[in-house]
């Protein structure tokens, strides 16, 4: 009888699977990703390597010495234990973070805009006591620009009523407001001494959300040639909530990670973070195989660093509040080993 190995499901639940079952899930996962995105599946050798990682009983898994990569973070200065600056220092001094991110708990550019001077002061103060690069991060969160939270009509209400043209116009209006806010925040952070800015969950509200991000990146790059700009996606596929939006002649609806990366690079970003959402009903093995299949095409053409999003609910890390180290370390190692990423 085959040995049953401890492993995790996509929701973090601990289960046991045999080597054969893990292999079957890896194969199913990669084929699912390949079929969906019309990209090649992982090779047999890659699946073998993943199987070795997932069939191990070790609590922790890691890359080989010499294969270490750079880590960027979201929200490492979020006032979890001490002040936000102290939290950043904890990340640097106690966790060995390569970079940190100052952020507000109301993690949206629209919200941050209203307290911008205070945020910029925090950035300046943090830069005095940190050695690692300090980014500032928030989400484009286009939905906040629709009523009742924002000025534009609510396209989520208009779409079910088949008022498509109005819904599109509403998103286009929201995009203008969002771009303005993102550029304003980036300008202020640069003036305060920030090393860079992170647009987290770009595309979360669909193609309009991604377009707002790309336009903001373009303007920020033009204004600040030396500023670090990271764009982290919300998911593997850009939803066509508007359906007709384009950036530099490329329709945004339906883009997968490779095409997302190309546009992010063209806009002027220096780091791209693909995201692949976890299926909580499937095993971690299934999820990692699918995630790697979808992101692998990026690496073949990457001209800027790729820092895959590997965290709660993305990158084959379970969707659970407390992340099991066995799952996080396996997913992280797999991403680096197979994809040869520049970071996480």
């Amino acid at each position, binding site marked *: 009888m085959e040995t049953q190995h401890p492993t995790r499901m996509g929701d973090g639940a601990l289960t046991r699977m045999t080597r054969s079952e893990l292999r079957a899930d890896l194969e199913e996962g990669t084929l699912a990703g390949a079929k969906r995105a019309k990209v090649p599946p992982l090779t047999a050798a890659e699946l073998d390597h993943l199987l070795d990682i997932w069939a191990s009983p070790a609590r922790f898994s890691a890359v080989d010495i*010499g294969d270490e990569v750079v880590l*960027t973070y979201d929200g490492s200065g979020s006032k979890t234990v001490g002040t936000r600056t102290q939290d950043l220092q904890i990340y640097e001094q106690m966790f060995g973070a390569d970079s940190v991110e100052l952020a507000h708990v109301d993690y949206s550019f629209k919200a941050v805009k209203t307290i911008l001077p205070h945020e910029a002061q925090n950035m300046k103060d943090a*830069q005095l006591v940190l050695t690692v690069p*300090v980014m500032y991060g928030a989400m484009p969160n286009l939905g906040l620009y629709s009523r009742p939270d924002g000025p534009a009509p609510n396209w989520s209400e208009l779409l079910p009523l088949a008022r498509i043209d109005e819904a599109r116009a509403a998103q286009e209006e929201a995009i203008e407001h969002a771009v303005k806010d993102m550029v304003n925040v980036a300008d202020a952070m640069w003036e305060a001494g920030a090393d860079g800015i992170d647009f987290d969950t770009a595309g979360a509200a669909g193609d309009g959300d991604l377009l707002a991000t790309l336009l903001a990146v373009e303007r920020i790059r033009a204004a600040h040639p030396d*500023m670090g700009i990271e764009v982290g996606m919300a998911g593997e596929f850009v939803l066509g909530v508007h359906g007709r939006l384009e950036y530099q002649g490329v329709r945004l609806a339906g883009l997968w990670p490779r095409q997302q990366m190309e546009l992010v690079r063209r806009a002027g970003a*220096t780091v791209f973070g693909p995201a692949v959402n976890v299926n909580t009903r499937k095993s971690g093995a299934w999820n990692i195989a699918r995630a790697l299949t979808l992101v692998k095409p990026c690496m073949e053409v990457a001209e800027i*660093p790729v820092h895959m999003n590997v965290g709660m609910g993305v990158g084959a890390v379970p969707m659970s509040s407390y992340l099991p180290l066995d799952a996080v370390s396996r997913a992280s190692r797999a991403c680096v080993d197979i994809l040869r990423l520049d970071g996480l």
Partner: protein
Amino acid sequence: MARMQITRGMRIGEAKTYVAERLGVTIGDLSDPLAMADVRAERRLGRITTFEMSYPTESSAMEAKFRIAEVLDVPINCVRRFREHAGIDRL
């Protein structure tokens, strides 16, 4: 290496090569925390401090970033701002 990626868009291999050359170490040394602790001390790039390992007479934080900017020949925004605000005319 994080700086080379975030501000210069260098891929990991290029960043490791660049940093190793600037620091006068091997790429393998970059993975060795003991070796890098010595390098950081010698070049005043800042080190992790704990109760047992305190370095009050060494560069840290903003001071270290001045050194990092010079050693790696990379512009650091907050270093430039600090110089402007403090009225320092030269690096």
